């Protein structure tokens, strides 16, 4: 892997696919959350309870006569009578419980990619030098008949051996390391129910003339 390929490596990372898969996951989760909220809405709309709209308490004065040493004294007494109104069947939705809807408000993708390429070259040189020198001397002395032809004779021989060697080793190492980490962060917040999915409450107040109609 050469240094030139690192740019290609970065180009090969499919950011578009990453964003698309995260967006798809969020959309899928959002649908599931909405479905769960709608199911809760159904349960709330079907959960009925007896609601007692009013309890009327009537306080009536009941004077009481208290006898003391100095005579009779009238003190104020109170009589309390309660009238419980007829229970009205009401759903939890009517009463005031609404499903909580959630929304992914923001999402972040953080991608950290670390590419590392290294090249190292080791060169080792081993050289040697060998030298060998030999000096040979030969001397001869004549005698007898040989003495008539000349004097002493000699020969000097000098032999030199020379050797040299060089070993060169080259080693090149290539290393390539790629590390990646991705972090996805999403923020989920409760939001007001969408107006379209919430039922409209229409109240008609027949106490008034003409009856007053309110919608909420």
């Amino acid at each position, binding site marked *: 892997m050469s240094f030139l390929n690192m740019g290609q490596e970065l180009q090969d990372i499919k950011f578009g696919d990453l964003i698309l898969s995260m967006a798809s996951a969020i959309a899928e989760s959002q649908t599931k959350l909405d479905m*769960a*909220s709608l199911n809760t809405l159904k349960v709330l709309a079907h*959960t009925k309870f007896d609601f007692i709209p009013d309890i009327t308490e009537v306080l009536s004065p009941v004077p009481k006569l208290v006898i003391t040493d100095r005579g009779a004294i009238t003190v104020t007494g109170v009589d309390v009578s309660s009238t419980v109104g007829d229970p009205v069947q009401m759903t939890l939705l009517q009463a*005031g*419980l*609404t499903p*909580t809807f959630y929304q992914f408000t923001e999402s972040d993708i953080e991608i950290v990619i670390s590419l590392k390429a290294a090249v190292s070259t080791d060169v080792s040189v081993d050289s040697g030098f060998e030298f060998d020198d030999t000096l040979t001397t030969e001397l001869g002395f004549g005698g007898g008949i040989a003495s008539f032809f000349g004097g002493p004779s000699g020969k000097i021989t000098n032999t030199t051996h020379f050797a040299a060697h060089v070993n060169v080793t080259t080693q090149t190492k290539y290393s390539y390391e790629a590390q990646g980490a991705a972090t996805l962060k999403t923020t989920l917040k*409760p939001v007001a129910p969408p107006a379209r999915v919430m039922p409209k409450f229409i109240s008609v107040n027949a106490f008034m003339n003409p009856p007053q109609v309110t919608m909420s």
Partner: protein
Amino acid sequence: MAMQMFLVGMNPGFSQETSRDVQHLVKKHGGFILMVTRNGPVVALDDSRVGAIQAHPQVRIVGGVTLNPKGLAAERLQRIFTENLMKQATLARDVKQQEQ
């Protein structure tokens, strides 16, 4: 999001015993029972514990709910929730003090 209000919808035909069982489960996970209805309790619970309640075989749905102040009985519901919450919080505090 921490503590939130949830409606625990039970499977149809659940018994009182099952309802109590679920309520104990909610308490075990640090939640409070705000009100008991015919379809299941309304509870205050840490949202990270919803999965544990949802896993109960008799629980059909655990859905987040919000009190709508415009509701016909919103004020009374709030009062009921507050009273029940206060009783349980006081009880929890007393138990904790006894343990210490």
